[in-house]
């Protein structure tokens, strides 16, 4: 990774926090800017290792990624799932209005 990327300022943090849908206060932004810059410094040690031509490894090779049959399996009914939701009405999840 190019140099200079590992120093994040409060504005960078605000962008990342927005992507992650996290709301941060001003002092939090400054603290996270420091923490994340230090973590990225640690991470940048990866650059010391040449990896040209190495096949990326997303998960242990021995574990397959199995596909299952596309079959209906309603193991848990709707009422039990909705019972753990913060707000519901008439069998639906309730959220603030998104379309005027």
């Amino acid at each position, binding site marked *: *990774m*190019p140099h200079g*990327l590992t120093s*994040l300022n409060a504005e960078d*943090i605000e962008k*990342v*926090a927005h*992507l*992650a*849908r*996290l*709301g*941060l206060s001003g002092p939090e932004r400054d603290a*996270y800017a420091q*923490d*994340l810059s*230090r*973590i*990225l*410094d*640690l*991470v*940048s*040690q*990866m*650059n*010391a*290792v040449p*990896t040209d031509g*190495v*096949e*990326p*490894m*997303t*998960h*242990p*090779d*021995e*574990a*397959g*990624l*199995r*596909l*299952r049959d596309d079959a209906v399996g309603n*193991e*848990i009914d709707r009422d*039990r*799932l909705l*019972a*753990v*939701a*913060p*707000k519901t009405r008439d069998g639906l*999840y309730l*959220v*603030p*209005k*998104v379309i005027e």
Partner: protein
Amino acid sequence: MTPTITKIAEDLAAGRCSSRELVDDALARIAAQAPLNAFVTVDPEAARRDADAADRARRAGAGGVLAGVPIAHKDIFCTAGVKTTCGSRMLADFVPPYDATVVGKMKAAGCVMVGKTNMDEFAMGSSNETSYFGPVRNPWDRDRVPGGSSGGSAAAVAARLVPAATGTDTGGSIRQPAALCGITGLKPSYGRVSRYGLIAFASSLDQAGPMAQTAEDCAHLLSAMAGFDERDATSLDVPVPDYAAGLGKDLKGLRIGVVKEHFAEGVEPGVLDALREALREYERLGARLVDVSLPNSAHAVPCYYVLAPAEASSNLARYDGVRYGFRAPDYQDLEDMYKKTRSQGFGPEVKRRIMIGTYALSAGYYDAYYVKALKLRRLIADDFARAFTQCDVLAGPASPSTAFALGAKNTDPVSMYLNDIFTIPVNLAGLPALSLPAGFAGGLPVGLQLIGRYLDEARLLNVAHRFQQATDWHARVPAGL
């Protein structure tokens, strides 16, 4: 004092005690040791009911070695009808409508759950200090951490509150607390134990496993936990051996690879002394020591702190205040609801990791961070494959230090991350590994990490078991219980 599962099973079979007595005893110990803060939830009523059912089943002639044995589950496993918090405000009131596969399997084996153990929030931490429910204290020294993230399970077993508990291990979360609390903890091969109903942190690394006093007990527990599960896309469809039946084999001719990079600067001298003595014990048992090298494992922590947060940022996107869990009380619109819910529901370490992961996956940085880390992961896994051409198991420290003081590292994320330097490479490669008690340094337990070939849990457990037949470190208990 709470005996081992092996002893409990004998006593139950001979009618010398009942499951109800064991459960009542466990509940009394948990209450007496409440200041350890090892449990988030205790369910005495359900535990007594299940114990009575186990006793009835036994009288009717049913039940295997685990039938009627009290256990605790880390609060990351979904338990139907029992609160499952994952150590977070986000799930502080979450009552799952279903059981994790591990929970269901252990229930089927007759285990009686007495409660749910405290943990670092969403399993992100190495000291148990990130829990929304406060830190767990180490039974060996209550001003010290138990390790993390399965710190509640480790402390509960070390303080002999329960004979066994479940844990999960993404970067060392079973082995490091097992080491710091002086118990035996096994992280199985990736895919060996189902992840269904285990609240996800980093899905390509997460694996559940047993924590108990001895390797023999872990063998019984693993036989019950492991096995193919259609509901986990990376579950392995291979037979589960009777791990306990395979114990007791001679170690003559066993080649133990001593990892050069793990016996080096940065490890406390007292830890190194204890481990060298443990290796001498293995030589006395007939094993041969072989020097091996894992040159790329030095880069495992940087690699992990891209991959685990990247996967976490994706997995934790589900906590939006809509379908389950916490929702902020006041908000203007949908986006404001998301942001307030997530800011108030997650603690600082979880937010830190979500942001690191989000950054590493964001446009312009994906190749430099995420793909680079995946390539390093391959090199780290290849190192293990090479080492295992020269030896049968690898040995080294589970943690560079014994238990550190509460508050000593939780203000500096990087120094906390470096605790897992010896455990993280194993998760990246997907291999099985365990930590077993191997002595003391300054009055605190030291853990020996043994790493095995893929799906070679049986050998790992036997190698640990033989050591425990020749030593009594695993039988030591903290003062003041």
